[in-house]
C-alpha cells in the first residue's frame, strides 16, 4: 500500500512540476489586452460608461474591474465582442436593448449657442452661431454628450426608426404551456 501511495504522490509532484515549468517557459506572448479592447470601443469618448474616455474604460476592462455591458453607443455588437475577448459571458439581462438612438434638436428651443457643436465627438451637428442647429442622423451614433451640454434642453434622444431597409424578423417564440417548475431553474 505504501508503495502505491508513494509512487502516485511522486508522479503527481513530478508531472505537476513539469506543467509549472511549461507554463513559465513555453507561455504564449500576447498583445497588450488593453490596446485590443480599446480598438473595439467606438472611440468617441462620450463618457456614458462612467469612465472619462474609451481608453480609461478599456484599461478598467483589462484589469477586470468594469462590466462589459457599460458601453451604450457601442450596442450589442460591442458588448459581445468585448465579452468574447475577455472570455466572460455578458450579462445582458440588465442591459436594456434600447436599440440604436440618435439625437434630435427641437428647433423651437434651440438658441444657436454652438455648445453642442463643439461637444459632438463625431461632428454630427450642423450649424453656426445664432443659426439653427441640426443633427446629421447618418453620422450621429447616440453617445448623448450633446444632450448634457445644451443650456435649453433642446436635444432629445430618439430611437432610430425602423424602415423597410433595417427591419428583420424577430426571434421565433416557441410557447410551451408552462406551469412553474417544481424544482429550481438552473439558469
Amino acid at each position, binding site marked *: 500500500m505504501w508503495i502505491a501511495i508513494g509512487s502516485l504522490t511522486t508522479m503527481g509532484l513530478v508531472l505537476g512540476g513539469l506543467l509549472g515549468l511549461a507554463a513559465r517557459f513555453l507561455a504564449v506572448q500576447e498583445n497588450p489586452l488593453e490596446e485590443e479592447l480599446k480598438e473595439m470601443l*467606438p*472611440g*468617441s*469618448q462620450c463618457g456614458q460608461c462612467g469612465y472619462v474616455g474609451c481608453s480609461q474604460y478599456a484599461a478598467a476592462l483589462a484589469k477586470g474591474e468594469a462590466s462589459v455591458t457599460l458601453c451604450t*453607443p*457601442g*450596442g*450589442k*455588437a*460591442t458588448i459581445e465582442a468585448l465579452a468574447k475577448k475577455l472570455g466572460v459571458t455578458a450579462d445582458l439581462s440588465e442591459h436594456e436593448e434600447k436599440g*440604436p438612438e440618435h439625437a434630435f434638436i427641437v428647433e423651437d428651443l434651440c438658441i444657436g449657442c*454652438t455648445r453642442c*457643436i*463643439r461637444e459632438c*465627438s*463625431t*461632428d*454630427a*451637428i*450642423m*450649424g*453656426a*452661431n445664432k443659426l439653427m442647429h441640426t443633427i*446629421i442622423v447618418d*453620422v450621429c*451614433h447616440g453617445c448623448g454628450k450633446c444632450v448634457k451640454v445644451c443650456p435649453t434642453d433642446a436635444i432629445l434622444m430618439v430611437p432610430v426608426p*425602423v*424602415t*423597410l431597409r*433595417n*427591419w*428583420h*424578423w*424577430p*426571434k*421565433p417564440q*416557441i*410557447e410551451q404551456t408552462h406551469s412553474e417548475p417544481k424544482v429550481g431553474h438552473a439558469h
Partner: protein
Amino acid sequence: MKLFPIRGGIHPDYRKEQTSEKAIVDLPMPSTLYIPLQQHIGAPAEVLVSEGDLVKKGQMIARNQGAVSASQHAPTSGRIRTVTEVTAPHPSGLPQSTIVLESDGKDEWAELLAPIADPFAADMHTINDRVAQSGIVGMGGAAFPSAIKLNLGEQKKLDTLLLNGAECEPYLTCDDRVMREFPEEIIDGARIMAHALGTARIVIGIEQNKPQAIENMTKAASAFAEIEVVGVPVQYPMGSERHLVQAITGLETPARKLTADLGIVVHNVSTARAVHHAVRFGRPLVSRVVTVSGNAIREPKNIMTPIGARIADLIEFCGGFASRPESVVNGGPMMGQPLASLEAPVVKGTSGILALTAEEINDNPTTPCIRCSSCVTICPCGLSPVDMAAHIRKDKLELAAKLGVMDCFSCGSCSFICPSHIPLVHYFNYAKGVLNDLERERNKNERVKTLAEARNIRLEKAAEAKRAALAARKTPSATTSAGNENEAKTTATTEEKVNA
C-alpha cells in the same frame, strides 16, 4: 438533353389544379392605383410627377436613381392624387413612398417609345437602354433590374440564356398560363435578350407538371434551332436559379458568385415577354399576371392586373373570401411572405396571392427536436438546419454563421419536412437579419471611430494654431483675436464635413 440531379428538395402537394386550367382574365381597372417607388432591388426611383398632374398610360412617373434601380410607369391614364406613405406588401406592414393615381377610366396610352425596328441588328446597348427605360425587373419574384443582368454580356463570357419556366411553388400557375397563352411573345423576347447578351444558345426549363406549356413553347420555338425547350423533373426548389442551372448543365455556381460566372444568365419567362413588349411596341412594364388561389378564396383565378391595384381589389374580383383565411400570403406558400394588410398594392414581383386555411398550412405546435436528420437530407444547399437552429435558439449566432446560415436562401424545405414543426426558416431569417444588422453596426462603429479621430486631429491642430498665435502675440505684430478665428474654423470645418 441530359439532365442532372439536384440535391435534396421536397415534393409537396402542388394543388395547382385550382387555377391551372383557368385562362388569364383581366382585372377591371380599379379606381385608384398605388405605385410604390421601390418595387425592385436597389435604390428607389425618383418621383417625376406631383399632385394634380395628368398622366397617360405608360408615362414614366418615376425615374431610376443610378444603375441599380428601376423606373415606374403609370399603369393607366388619370390624375396623380398624391405621393405619400402607403403600407408596403411586406410582412412588417411598414409604409413606403407610393404614388397614388386616380384612374380616369379611359386607359389611354401615352406616346410610347418607337419600336426597335430590327432588334437583331441593333446594338446591345440600344436594347439594354430600352429595357431599362421600360422599368423591367425580374418577374419571378426577385425583382432585380433586368437591364443590369442583360449588361453582363459585356463583363463576362456568356454562352447560354436560360429561361426559368419551372414555377416550382405550389398553387402558382401564372407562368404556366403565360407560357400556354403567349408562347410566341416569350420566344421573341428570349431571342432579343439572347442577342443583347451575346449568347448563342437559349434553353427554356419547364417543370414536367406543365405538359401543355412544354408543348406550346416547343411548338413556338420549333422554328429556331438555337432554342431548346426542356422538361425538368418536378422537384421543389427546381425554380431556384442555381439549382435550375445545375439540373440543366450539371455545374454548381460557386458561393458568392453569379451564374453568369459559369456563362449562363437566367431570366423568368414573364420577364422575356415584358422585353418583347418593350422592344417591339415600346410598352413599359405596367401589368402582370397574378395567381389568386387557396381554399379560402371563393373563385381562384389567374388575373392580368395593372401594377398598383390593391390586393383587396384582386380578392374582391375573385369573389372575396369563402372562409376566414389563416394567412394571406404574397407569393407561393414556401417562400412567400405573409401580408400584414390587404390595402398593400400588387408590385412587379408579385406572382401570387394565396388565402390559405389552417388545414392547408397544416402547422402544429412545435415539439422538441428529435434529430431525425430529415432536414439535413433535404436541404438543397447542403447545410445542417438542425445544428444551425440549435445554435440560434441559444443565441450563438456567430456559430450559426460558421455553419453557413448566410448561404441559406430560405427555400423552406426544412421547415416543411420537420416532424416536430420547428420553425427552422424563421430561425434562419431571424439570424440572417441580426447578422446583417451587426455587420451594419460594425461598419458604423468603424466610421464613427474614423470621424472621432478626424475630429481629435482637427482640435489638436486648432489648439496648436492657438498656441502659435499666443506666442506670436508676444511680438508687437499681433493678429486678430485668436478666439474668433478658432470659432470660425470650427463651424467652417463642420460644414466642410457635411458637404464631403
